[in-house]
């Protein structure tokens, strides 16, 4: 008698992902006002201040949002009162989550965004944006760490990303 031993199949524990695709908003040619969306992480305000000082002839207004939680509807409403919003800072897990997810909420409200995340969290930030359908979300990578650093050190790191931010703005203007 021939007997065949067959091992039972095992089932896959991984979930399916909802496939969606969203486009980012183009940055307008004329930018008059930028909202600086500060999630209150240490030195986020300094990063945004240095960026603002580097961009001429643009008005800025600062909006505060929680670090590890979503922006309130009122905070989002304040942030969309601009031609563009720059969000800082994703330099930990929960704050990266909510920088990216709030940026996507702003993009859905038709406001173009630039998010700033530290290089230790950039892979996660991009993957998060992709899994929420916004693969092309603009995310600028700054050198980690930012928290607990002297002002001089943070300034040096911010200056390294200024050309990329300026290029992003000019590049988008050409599209």
């Amino acid at each position, binding site marked *: 008698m021939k007997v065949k031993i067959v091992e039972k199949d095992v089932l896959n524990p991984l979930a*399916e992902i909802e496939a969606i695709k969203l486009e980012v908003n183009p940055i307008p040619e004329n930018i008059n006002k930028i909202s600086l969306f500060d999630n209150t992480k240490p030195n986020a305000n300094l990063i945004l201040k240095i960026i603002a000082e580097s961009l001429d002839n643009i008005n800025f207004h600062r909006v505060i949002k929680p670090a590890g939680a979503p922006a309130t509807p009122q905070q989002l409403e304040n942030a969309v009162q601009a031609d563009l919003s720059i969000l800082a800072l994703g330099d*930990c897990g929960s704050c990266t989550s909510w920088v990216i997810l709030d940026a996507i909420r702003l993009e859905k409200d038709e406001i173009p965004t630039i998010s700033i995340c530290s290089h230790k969290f950039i892979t996660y930030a991009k993957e998060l944006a992709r899994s929420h359908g916004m693969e092309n979300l603009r995310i600028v990578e700054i050198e980690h760490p930012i928290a607990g650093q002297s002002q001089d050190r943070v300034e040096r790191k911010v200056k390294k990303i200024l050309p990329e931010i300026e290029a992003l703005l000019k590049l988008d203007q050409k599209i």
Partner: protein
Amino acid sequence: MGNKHITNKNVKINENTCGCFIDDLIGENPEMDKNRKKELKNNRLCSSYENDLEVYVDSDTEKVSYDFYMRKLTDGLPIIPPTKEKLLKFLHYTDYNPDDVITILPPKQGKATVEKIAINSIMAGCIPAFMPVIQHAVQALSQDQFNLPGVNATTHPVAISVIINGPISREIAVNSGVGCLGPGNIANATIGRALRLCLINIAGAVPGISDHATMGSPAKYSFCFGEAENESPWEPLNVERGFKTETSTITVMAAEAPHNVNDHRSKTAEDLLNTIVNTASVAGCNNSHVPGEILIIMGPEHAQTVADNDWEKEDVKRYIHENTFLPVELADRGGRKLDNQWIIDSNVRITRSPEDVVLLVAGGPGRHTMIAHGFGTSSESVTLPLTLKDGTPLQSVQDYKNQNNKK
């Protein structure tokens, strides 16, 4: 070779049979139970086969565990191989269809179907009767106020504390007594683990990839227990949160690993609570700069000492709220700029209000309490009643079986 069964290969001569099954030749037997028919069919020898017998055996645990581990599908511990046979047993304990989506879990936006929840529960070592608790816990985790995108991804070592109240906690023998936060009980050990595996495989919170905990915590393996309702001098958590005593509930709270409060000395409520608040007033927790919930698991002996002085539960919660604080110069060390609204008389309270004190009674003999700080302002605990799909509260986990038999 335990747990084996013998079956034929599917050599079709029509849609349903290889042709040698007697019932197919003589026609349907309406008296024969459907399951019995299937069983007969699956156990019947057939001369048209390459092999005389095919013996199906359970997957090799060691091999599957290693394979799943290498694919980052586990928490690092061995798993029970999830097979279809095991899945079917779990599906008896839900009134949803296997592919019904219970919720979407961030950050990866994975569809938490009943089947995927069950598969991860099998892997965790759960028994099928735990399925209703796990299914509702997954649903609770996805509520906005819980903030799963933050909790899953954070560098903070926050775990998911799972608290089970009501008669179903006793029916499935959740430990609420001696060693309820430690080893030794299958419900406590595996329900929390099942949730962690759901977060890894459904939500995508793979450690080092989407779970960025700087060090993590042993509590992230499992942090599940029941409230010792019969040992408590106060109303249990499910009643405090608006449900009937007989309504079973699941509560999920984002919490650090518990820290012990040893007090064998105090004889009055105030003395004892002072030991607790002085243990809870620490600078390094999230709550020190973004106040939020704190879990207080009071041992029955401590609770009795406090109640003997006629302190009600709300008195205890208020006292802990008002007296758990630290000087402002010691707060604001967790990474977020301190908001002025939290500063009162140059101090920062650990909680925002007495409601933030999640107080319950559990544990065995001994004069200990456990405290666990929450995730700060960014997450709030969620309590859901265990119900059927139509909202009817569950009296027993067997209610699902009765529902399914009616179908």
